[in-house]
């Protein structure tokens, strides 16, 4: 058994390259894990597309004959809806209860036994999942929408890279929010209550059900600057439809960076507090 047992001291020195390699490998596994569920992806695309038609007709009706509402013209509303339908699966605003389930069943013990911090490990997996969703769930609605509705194409060369960055940050911010909601299982065991609040709150406040521009100015500003929710969906979509001047868009993406850093730090703090009072369910 010589080759199976411990013969070489494992590396313990911090090494940025090694860290990124580990992070990349976990992210790649997240991509592969979700790529195994092809039929679920197809079902999701069909659902998103059907709801895309409904939302688009409703928003265009709100715009009415004037053709504009809250600073969006008809083409911008088209892009807002169809890109939003695709982004919904990329940021995975709903339905992620893996961490809460693992806490409830005690499987979380296996996560804690790995030499990677749980927040890092789950984040890497989530970015891999988002990568798969970008191909399988974002592209189809974005391609289908323009066949039936007028859409807005970005005019500034920097918009698309900024949109990509904004989506990446939206995934991280959404991950942070979902991680915190799931982590409430350390205290509550059953997370159905926080999950219902999150589902309702995030849908309304992230700009999914309607662009936040539909709200009174003071309320929109409060939500935009004082809560992370607009960073999930509203900000990337506003960047894509170039609703604001470029400096303002850069500021909004900067705000996303702030929320991402703050939420990840909060996740680590909550995780540390939880580990000190952890009870592994099921012996």
């Amino acid at each position, binding site marked *: *058994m*010589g*080759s*199976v*047992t*411990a*013969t*070489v001291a*494992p*590396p*313990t020195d911090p090494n940025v390259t*090694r860290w990124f*390699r*580990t992070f*990349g*490998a*976990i992210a790649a*596994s997240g991509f*592969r*894990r*979700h790529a*195994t*569920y092809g039929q679920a992806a197809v079902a999701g695309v069909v659902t998103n597309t059907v709801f895309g038609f409904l939302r688009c007709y409703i928003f265009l009706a709100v715009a009415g004959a004037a053709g504009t509402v809250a600073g969006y013209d008809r083409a911008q509303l088209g892009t807002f809806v169809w890109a939003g339908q695709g982004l919904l699966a990329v940021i995975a605003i709903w339905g992620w209860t893996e961490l809460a389930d693992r806490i409830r069943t*005690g*499987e979380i*013990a*296996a996560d*804690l*036994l*790995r*030499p*990677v*911090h749980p927040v890092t490990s789950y984040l890497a997996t989530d970015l891999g999942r988002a990568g798969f969703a970008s191909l399988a769930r974002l592209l189809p609605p974005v391609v289908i929408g323009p066949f039936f509705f007028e859409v807005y194409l970005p005019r500034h060369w920097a918009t698309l890279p900024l949109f990509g960055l904004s989506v990446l940050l939206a995934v991280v911010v959404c991950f942070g929010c979902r991680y915190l909601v799931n982590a409430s299982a350390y205290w509550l065991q059953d997370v159905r209550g926080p999950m219902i609040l999150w589902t309702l709150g995030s849908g309304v406040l992230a700009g999914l059900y309607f662009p936040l521009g539909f709200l009174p100015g003071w309320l929109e500003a409060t939500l935009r600057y004082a809560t992370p929710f607009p960073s999930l969906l509203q900000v990337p979509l506003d960047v894509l439809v170039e609703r604001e001047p470029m400096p303002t868009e850069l500021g909004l993406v900067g705000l996303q960076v702030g929320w991402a850093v703050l939420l990840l730090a909060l996740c680590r703090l909550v995780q540390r507090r939880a*580990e*000190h*009072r*952890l*009870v*592994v369910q*099921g*012996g």
Partner: protein
Amino acid sequence: MSVIEMDGLRKEFTVRVRAGRLRREKRTVTAVDGVDLRVERGEMLGYIGPNGAGKSTTLKMLTGVLMPSAGRARVCGLRPVADRTRLALRIGVVFGQRSQLWWDLPLRDSFALLRHVYRVPPGEHAARLARCRSLLDLDEFLDTPVRQLSLGQRMRGELTAALLHGPEVLFLDEPTIGLDVVSKQAVRGFLAELGRAGDTTLVLTTHDLADIERLCRRLVVIDHGRVVHDGSIAALHSRYGSRRMVVAELDAALPAPPELPGAPVQRVEADGRRLVFALESASVAEVVAGLAGLATLRDISIVEPDIEEVVARLYRAPAEVG
């Protein structure tokens, strides 16, 4: 320095119990109650106890998953909770009732991912994986997603996953639970070979005492969170008075169980035609001679001390036998 050190290790949980229609009271439950233990490098330690005795809790404290309420623990010289990430690189853990593999991925992909997670050089990883593939017959299901594996296959995968980074200490929490005879033999054979090499320390908790008899020279029995035995299996038998049994098959039942000095009757079976005597001070020859004068003997057999029996007695009344 011992590879595992525990000094007064203690874990308490607070549970809320109903104390009225609306009122709930907090109650403290002590799962591990001041365990002192040293385990040396290369030892194979059996850590057993009845359900709820504190075995798994001890293992979780030693692996850094649970924070001890009091006491001190060191594994490979590290503090399990404070140094958990560093410790994870030096230990392997198999939970029989939980999986450390990725449910959606084929076993091969899980192993490849573990190489990155544990930052194992490719050559070492390949050598260890090749060895495990050959010893645990992994090849036939290496490309099967973990969710589709049988329990026996998954457990072989779990063992491999726990060893690919070359741990110095391997913690096994009921690794043979639910396995069929063939899978149990495969797992035991693998662990026995691992133990023979002598450079991996094994801590094994199990309810299957055959695992312990086959693998461990040292046995620690824990009950109500306290160590009630620490020594060899032979020492357990001798300390708690395990006795050999003489089973006598008679032609016809006797009117009453015979009273033989130094060999009380333990059981009467088969309508009185089978008597089981426990050898205390009498020899087998004395029992046979004593019976020959009372009845016609058809057969005699001798049953060696049974570890399950003595452990069962220990579980039922540790204070009494201890």
